[in-house]
């Protein structure tokens, strides 16, 4: 090879390398991960045990997406967590940080309604799509904010299901014990409104969710002789409340039924704390009953159990579904642009763990006048059923379903409640 040809060959090689490098860099630029933020209570005073489960489920979802090749031409998804500690101010700062520093293109999360409501103006300011996984306050969606979608149940939906069950069983005297948080206050309001429309006599009491000892109040409630005690206090206090209710001889007993909070779905801790006292406790589970769950839902729950050695609670399912839904919207929009993602969410129909998600009411199809305002960007088909633990160690999916009638187990019949046997 002549020296001229050699020089030409070297120049050609150098140019090829240079072009290749640019191409590689450009490709790498394209393969920047898609960042999705998640804000949850991960430490006190927030509901950190629920936050942890929701985060774990979202991590599982992120792994699934990445293992199957990512989205938008092979880009990985990156889940970025910021702890709200269940405090509105910290929740606001968390969202601001995710948007301005981490440059996320979508946000999911929340357990505390107060935090979700505080974050909404920030989401509006930066115009970032947001899927609210577990804040029940009707106002989260009733404000009609463009960026906000919700897949959880709302407070008014939840209370209606409970009141329908109370009427069907024929309870006459109901004592409701709520927590003195925004959630509890709303629950109290909706229950009062709905129970006023029935013949059920009721009383209520509000308790600090940090309360450890309810004995004095329970002894007092026992004097009124209710036939149902509705003990809706979340977090560790829910275990203490049930145990103390049983230990004071109030409920669950042959005379008084006990309806506990969704925290009691954590079967591992529930049975460890309650033991025999936990039998005949009624709990609502905001998910599809196992008999009608899809194969995909069963697989996800199995994977969660294998990974974390815990049953997947409905809140964890919401963490999983919220993440997947955001990803599906981006896939459908073929972009991470906020307007495109919001438009995709408004038109989405996607099968998740807790059912087929869609948001029928939004900018193209406003909420009709005869429907409540909170139906804006609200997943309307949230399923909620009531189960009753009948054996020590039962998981929520093993316990008989007692309500609604279409899903009720054979053992319940048309009574919709299995009474505590007389000793």
């Amino acid at each position, binding site marked *: 090879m002549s020296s001229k040809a050699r020089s030409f060959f070297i120049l050609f090689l150098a140019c090829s390398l240079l072009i290749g490098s640019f191409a590689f860099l450009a490709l790498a630029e394209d393969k920047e991960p898609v960042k999705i933020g998640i804000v949850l209570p991960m*430490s*006190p*005073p927030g509901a*950190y*045990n629920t*936050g*942890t489960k929701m985060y774990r489920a979202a991590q599982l979802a992120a792994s699934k997406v990445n293992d199957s090749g990512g989205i938008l031409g092979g880009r990985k998804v990156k889940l970025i967590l910021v702890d709200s500690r269940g405090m509105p101010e910290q929740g606001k700062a968390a969202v601001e940080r995710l948007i301005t520093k981490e440059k996320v293109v979508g946000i999911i999360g929340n357990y505390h309604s107060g935090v979700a409501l505080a974050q909404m103006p920030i989401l509006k300011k930066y115009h970032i799509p947001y899927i609210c996984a577990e804040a029940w306050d009707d106002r989260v969606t009733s404000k009609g904010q463009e960026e906000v979608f919700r897949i959880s149940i709302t407070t008014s939906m939840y209370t209606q299901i409970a009141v329908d069950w109370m009427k069907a069983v024929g309870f006459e005297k109901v004592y409701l014990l709520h927590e*003195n948080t925004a959630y509890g206050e709303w629950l109290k309001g909706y229950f009062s409104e709905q129970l006023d429309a029935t013949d059920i006599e009721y*009383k*209520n*009491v*509000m*308790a*600090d969710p*940090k*309360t*450890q*000892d*309810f*004995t*004095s*109040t329970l*002894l*007092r*409630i*026992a*004097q009124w002789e209710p036939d149902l005690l509705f003990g809706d206090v979340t*977090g*560790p206090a829910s*275990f*203490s409340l049930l*145990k*103390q209710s049983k*230990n*004071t*001889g109030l409920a669950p007993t042959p005379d008084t039924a006990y309806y506990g909070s969704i925290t009691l779905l*954590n079967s*591992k*801790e529930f049975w*460890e*704390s309650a*033991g*025999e006292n936990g039998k005949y406790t009624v709990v609502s589970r905001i998910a599809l009953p196992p008999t009608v769950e899809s194969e995909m839902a069963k697989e996800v729950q199995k994977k969660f159990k294998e990974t974390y050695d815990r049953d997947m609670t409905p809140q964890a399912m919401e963490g999983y579904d919220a993440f997947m839904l955001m990803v599906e919207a981006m896939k459908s929009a073929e972009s991470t642009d906020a307007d495109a993602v919001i438009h995709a969410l408004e038109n989405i129909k996607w099968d998740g763990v807790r059912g087929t998600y869609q948001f029928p009411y939004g900018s193209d199809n406003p909420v009709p006048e005869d429907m409540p305002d909170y139906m804006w960007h609200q997943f309307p088909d949230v399923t909620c059923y009531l189960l009753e633990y009948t054996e020590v160690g039962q998981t929520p999916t093993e316990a008989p379903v007692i309500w609604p009638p279409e899903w009720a187990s054979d053992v319940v019949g048309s009574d919709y409640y299995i009474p505590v046997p007389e000793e």
Partner: protein
Amino acid sequence: MYTADYFLMQGMSGLVLGSLYALMALGLTLIFSVLKVINFAHGEFYVIGGYISYFLLSLVAGIPPIFGVLASMVGLFFLGALVEGTLLRPIHLGQVDRPDEYAILITFGLSFLFQNLLLSVCGPFPKTPPSFLQGGWRIGVMMISYDRIIAAGIAIGIMTLMMWLVRSTWSGQALRAVSQNKDAASIVGINPLRMNTLAFAIGSALAGGSGALVAPVFSMAPDAGVVPSIRSFIIVVLGGMGSIKGAIIGGLIIGLIETLGTAVIPDPSRALAYKRVYGLIIFALVLLVRPQGLFGEEE
């Protein structure tokens, strides 16, 4: 209309709670009387006690739950000694310029550290060790669980033992001497530094024992020590800072007032919501009349 049985049951419940409150406050007051330090991490020692009991009883199947209480007290005794010997010792060696602020910062810092360590190590889910004894003592339709009665009985036993130790043993007298006058105590051959460690270790052990006693009733979570810790401060000030008798009587008073207030105030929601306020009202009234607390000594 409330019956006599109702008040008997509420009174019993108040005394049971009060004795558990008193045990925890006793540890706090002992630490203050000897070291002149307010331990803001006392609530976390209480929680660690509950966790030690839980893990021991979970790991060693069939072991009587009382061993959980003993293990917690022993574990917290050594943890307390370690904390005092390493983090608080500089105060008493004159190595820090502003000892009061230093003590506050160190114990506050420990409180946050332990809360977050517990969250990382033990997980976010509440833990409940097995019951001392299933069932309860029934009057009419009401019942008080054996767990509570046994916990209160053990708490009273520990407090009696503590009173005896402080009054009748050499170490107890040495602790009292250091609490009254450190310099005079050293002149008669008592090592105040050693007494500081002993007081902090015993105080921590009492908090741990108290946590282990209530864990079967209340469940333990990383932040479960916050409310009991605040209540203990109230009891200690009510009874008189540094007074052992004051901590015990103060604990019983707060337990009874909280329970009876919740039992009789006409509106049950307010009655429960203001549960912690009843103690504060008594606390404020007592301080108005006796600023040094019920059994405290004037400066």
